[in-house]
């Protein structure tokens, strides 16, 4: 126990705050308090309530039969093959969409960064899909992929004219991913553009003088220097993609094995009125998002402060 005694108490090293600083701190607390109360009301309360509801068997259609069941809902969900199938579909969608968005988004970012003519128009047109509501994008792509009156089948030489994209799991997931990628790539390219702007022109010039090729400059100079921005972009998009709902709701309504975890949760709460089970799924969804965020931050050692140039 000697080492605890030898360690200096932190208070002892800290300079004693002046009266003025104490008063300012107090005022600061008071000013922040209302916002804090509102935050607790609108975020902490629903979250705690969902946690509480997830421990009961509670259907809106039979409110009087509500009963406390402990962790039963979690056990049912975690041992259900449907839950794990939706989890696999969701993770699959997340990986595929983020991968393609990253590549296409980076190309767009380069174009937006380097373009010298009609800069405003080009930048704006790249960003248009992001300005479109996801539900609208979902409908547009659903019509495009429709086997009876869509145009995708006419454009693709290797599919039959009346191929039904929404008849099987993988074609349907492909259509959903295309809509998702089309809609959110601009967001990715915006984040990457910000990172690209941080890369110092001097370094690129220096590499050029040293005789580095375009590819060498890209992989040795540009990408390493915008690593933080790339990781933040991946983190944001991965968390977004994991919660995918709109496109699935519009395009397949969860048919042919395309349900995501969000969609499964929606069905329990909104369609089945199973508030207890739905809350348990929401809590699991929330935990999954936390785990993904943790993994990305730890695995890729993302420094969020560095990305915001605070570090």
């Amino acid at each position: 126990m000697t080492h605890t005694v030898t360690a200096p108490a932190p208070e002892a090293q800290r300079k004693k705050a002046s009266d003025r600083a104490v008063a300012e701190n107090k005022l600061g607390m008071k000013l922040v308090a209302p916002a804090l109360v509102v935050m607790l009301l609108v975020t902490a309360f629903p979250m705690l309530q969902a946690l509480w509801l997830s421990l009961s068997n509670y259907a809106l259609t039979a409110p009087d039969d509500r009963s406390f069941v402990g962790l039963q809902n979690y056990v049912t969900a975690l041992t259900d093959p449907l839950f794990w199938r939706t989890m696999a579909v969701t993770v699959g969608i997340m990986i595929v969409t983020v991968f393609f968005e990253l590549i296409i988004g980076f190309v767009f970012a380069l174009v937006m960064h380097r373009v010298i003519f009609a800069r405003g128009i080009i930048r704006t047109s790249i960003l248009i899909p992001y300005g479109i509501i996801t539900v609208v994008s979902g409908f547009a792509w659903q019509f495009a992929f429709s086997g009876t009156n869509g145009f995708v089948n006419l454009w693709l030489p290797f599919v039959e004219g009346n191929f039904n994209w929404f008849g099987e799991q993988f074609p349907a997931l492909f259509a959903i991913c295309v809509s998702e990628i089309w809609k959110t790539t601009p967001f990715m390219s915006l984040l990457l553009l910000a990172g690209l702007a941080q890369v110092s022109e001097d370094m690129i010039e220096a590499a050029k003088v040293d005789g580095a090729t375009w590819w060498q400059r890209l992989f040795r100079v540009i990408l390493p220097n915008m690593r933080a921005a790339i990781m933040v972009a991946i983190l944001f998009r991965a968390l977004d993609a994991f919660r995918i709902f709109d496109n699935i709701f519009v395009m397949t309504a969860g048919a042919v094995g395309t349900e995501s975890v969000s969609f499964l949760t929606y069905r329990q709460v909104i369609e089945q009125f199973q508030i207890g089970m739905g809350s348990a799924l929401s809590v699991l969804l929330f935990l999954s998002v936390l785990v993904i965020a943790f993994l990305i931050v730890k695995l890729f050692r993302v420094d969020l402060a560095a990305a915001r140039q605070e570090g």
Partner: protein
Amino acid sequence: MGGPHPRLGRRVGAAATLVLAASTLTACGSSGKPTLNWYINPDGQATLTSLAERCSTDDYDIEIQLLPTGATDQRTQLARRLAASDSSTDLMSLDPVFVPEFASAGWLLELPEDVASAVVDDDVLAGPAETVTWEDGVYAAPQWANTQVLWYRQSLADAAGISEDLEAGTATWEQVITAASENGATVGVQADRYEAYMVWINALVQGAGGEIVSNTEAGVDAEVEIDSEAGRAAAAVVQQLADSEAAQSDLSVSREGTSLGAMFAEGSPGEFMTNWTFVYKNYEPSETNTVVTEEQFGDLAWARYPRTVEGEASKPPVGGINIGVGAFTEHQDHALEAAQCVTDPEAQLALAVTDGLMPARASVYDEQELVDAYDPTLLELFRTSVEEGGPRPKSAFYNQISGAVQSQWHSPFDVDPESTPRESAEYLREVLRGEALL
């Protein structure tokens, strides 16, 4: 706000109070004559709007509120209001299958004796009358009845040589599917993962003399019976269609509206299509409707819903709309009066003549105006189909039953008589016991 202009602050405060008070007063003023909100489904909107006007009185106005197109979405929207004890939901158009669920949740006002005996008297057809009762109480008033028949082109049936069986009402699904595939035609059904797919499966199972579930009053303890000869016969029909040339390319996403175009598609012999009564008005040429020509329309024919198995009469699907009164309405008497008005014979006649939504009352079928508007054989077919049709399971847990069946039977391309009925029975039991996610 206190700082340099304390008076200004006070004045602003006073002004805000005035504005608030004024708006509260206006709200009070407009509530002199109550407004009843009637949530309708989109069928026959124009007729329902004029009906709402006709049924508004000096004591109250009826205002139309539109619900989404799909039956499941309609249920969701109404239920979310009613679960929160919404007092502004006065009248609602309900799909018959949702009456038990809503009634057992305490969301529907049980109709008092005098109203109940008026809206469900001897004149009301047996099918619709059955759908509004739950545990000895009457919870809604039948407004119109829907049923499905087999629509086809006479020229196609003649070429296939099955006209006689069709006219006699004894044609089977097997005959129809074979006839279509041998003549380059198709068979139109509803097999997307939604309520109408459940309608088809239920009709197929009942047509083979079975039930999806029985003893539905037992709630979650109902008997699951889809794993039976009847269930396998139903699965065999779905499989036969999915595997045949007659399957439409969008079979697994087909809805009521998607196969309408195939009937008179250019260069095609047409189709056999099971669909609701609205189809006739959909094609019938008029000044505003030029979907098909008079000549094509003359080729349109209809027959009783096909049989699942030979020698057993088919059980055509029965649907329609019932008018329920919200349990939390502040204007009970007005709402009850309005519910009777919007379901009276005159209202049913108007819906039938202009929108093809068939009456729930037998006497209305004899009205001259309706007889003039339809071919007499078709009118008779509608009436017998409604009378002899089969309802979907009447359960407070209907939504779970329907969802579980849809999830196991979709996609139609994967239906197999050996496994699908058995697996769907197991899954349905688990869902009802709350042991499986849906």
